[in-house]
């Protein structure tokens, strides 16, 4: 805060505080506002209520993944393994191995798998001090390799109806997937503000060495965030599988989520460490990205244009953040 306040030193009182507050907002809020204005001018039909629910449902899988990623990135780590987790969950939910069991057991198996992948990441990162980037990227490569090798002999089928219900069902007009998402976001936001663990997270993120010297179990905090990220990646994967309905052996499933989740977190104002940014910012970032891709599709952009846009959005968000920090 102090760093920005000096920018507005020449301005007086309450107005200054307002300016500081607006300046302090993360790029996700500006971006969403700009997008909504652009949509209002060029594509008013994107602003209808029905379409709002469609976008929210599409954003839910990414939003779940972003929730975990934002926790991990807060404490100076990163989780690039979510792409592999999403693919593995997709295969387990639709593959032949568990199809004889009831839906809730399959869901539990997927959540268990996500947590285990997260725990392996966390253990390798905290105990062996491996670079999180490399460890989690390698984990994605391993998951993809194993799943694709298995899927060649036993291709996936349909997703169980329970998972399809979560992914694409509705209460009246309201889709269920975003309700699940928000059902995780609000407790997480409260936990970050109110619980000891939330303060530990802030402390580890701002300065890991200081946190360690103050007796905070910083390794355990980082480990737990990775387990949490594995869990949210599995939930995101389940929502995505339920939304699509059938399994796929396409190794590309979930790959775009890796980058999108990082983009949403940066847009949401959480950078590596620093203890800044909350839970809501990244969630708005996830909504904004989903809206951007729909907006681009409505202009006839293809995959290539979307990739370029995605790269630009991340770069610009990171640059804004870099400039603010200076």
């Amino acid at each position, binding site marked *: 805060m102090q760093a920005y306040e000096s920018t507005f030193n020449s301005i007086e009182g309450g107005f200054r505080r307002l300016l500081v507050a607006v300046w302090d907002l993360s790029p996700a809020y500006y971006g969403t506002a700009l997008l909504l204005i652009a949509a209002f001018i060029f594509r008013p039909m994107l602003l209808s209520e029905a379409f709002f629910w469609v976008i929210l449902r599409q954003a839910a899988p990414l939003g779940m993944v972003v929730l975990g990623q934002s926790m991990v990135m807060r404490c100076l780590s990163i989780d690039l393994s979510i792409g592999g987790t999403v693919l593995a969950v997709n295969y387990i939910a639709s593959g032949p191995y568990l199809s004889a069991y009831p839906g809730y057991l399959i869901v539990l198996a997927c959540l268990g798998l996500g947590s285990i992948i997260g725990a392996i990441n966390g253990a390798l990162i905290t105990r062996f001090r491996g670079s999180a980037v490399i460890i989690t990227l390698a984990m994605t490569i391993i998951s993809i390799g194993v799943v*694709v*090798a298995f899927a*060649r002999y036993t291709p996936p089928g349909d997703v169980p109806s329970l998972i399809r219900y979560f992914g694409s069902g509705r209460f009246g007009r309201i889709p269920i997937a975003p309700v699940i998402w928000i059902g995780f976001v609000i407790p997480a936001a409260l936990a970050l503000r109110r619980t000891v663990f939330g303060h530990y997270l802030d402390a580890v993120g701002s300065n890991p060495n200081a946190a360690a010297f103050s007796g905070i179990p*910083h390794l355990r905090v980082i480990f737990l965030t990775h387990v949490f990220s594995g869990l949210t990646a599995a939930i995101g994967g389940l929502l995505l599988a339920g939304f699509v309905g059938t399994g796929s052996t396409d190794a590309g499933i979930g790959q775009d989520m890796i980058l999108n989740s990082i983009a949403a977190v940066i847009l949401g104002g959480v950078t590596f460490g620093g203890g800044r940014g909350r839970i809501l910012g990244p969630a708005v970032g996830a909504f904004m990205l989903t809206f951007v891709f729909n907006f681009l599709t409505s202009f006839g952009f293809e995959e290539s244009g979307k990739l*370029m*846009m995605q790269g630009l959005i991340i770069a610009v968000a990171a640059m804004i953040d870099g400039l603010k920090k200076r």
Partner: protein
Amino acid sequence: MRGFTVKLYSRSGLSLNTLALPVVLIIVLTTTARGFASWENLSNLSSQIAALVIVSLGQMMVALVAGLDLSVGSVISLVTCVIATEGGPLMLTVPLSLAIGVAVGLVNGWGVAFLGIHPIVMTLSSMTFLQGATFVWQSIPGGHVPAILSEIGAGQTMEVPHSLLWSALCAVALAVVLNRSRFGLHLFAVGGNSVSARLNGVAARRITVSAYVVCSVLAVIAGLYLAARIASGDPKIGASFGIDSVTAIALGGTQLSGGIGGVASAVIGALSLGLISNGMNLLGVSPFLQSAAKGVLLVVVICAQRRKSVGL
């Protein structure tokens, strides 16, 4: 692990483990995989790993200043497509490719050194942007590469495959830069401790930017080589090079936290990784399990590199 490591020359990153790995692999493969030691397979191996050697050299430069460049793969893909443009003369496409490389390096380096963006975020975003640009240029494999480039890339002179010359030339050039120039010395200084390097009058930020430029230019050269070898453009050919090059330099003993590494470690690492792939091919391991095995290998190697910080 630590007790068995013999430090030969600490700054180079080489240790008994990293040196022994390719030797052990060669011995194992000569005895188990039939046809490994044949001239044909060795020449094949050389052409398979040349691009990886060149990219790893660049990745090592960035790793020396504690960075990481994941955009090399997209640069390679884009370059093969630029070179394979129908009717494009090499006089035009080669300088264009090099200009792209310099521009990408400048942007990456500027973001990392001057704006303080984390290398992963910066290079992931440029990787994504360039992959999109590559698809705009050419969406499916195809195109045509001038015959002369194919000859330079895939031919032989007196039984020596040209691929060997490509890697050797790049390695020697980089060895001279690293060991005989002021820039090389400054790279190690910035990687070792950027704050004290700056206090001693090293233009740390400019050195970092230069490292990224060198890395991208080497990726361009690897792209030229690959375009020559496959005689066409492929918008996805580079996809695995980002992570493979990181695996290679880590295998060779280059520390990703900066300051420790060298040409020998990059070459030995790329050779080890190439031998592993070549051996698994000869032994008939499924390509998907091969990539999983490489992932496991990467985890093991990275965990064996002890470092102080936790996280990124």
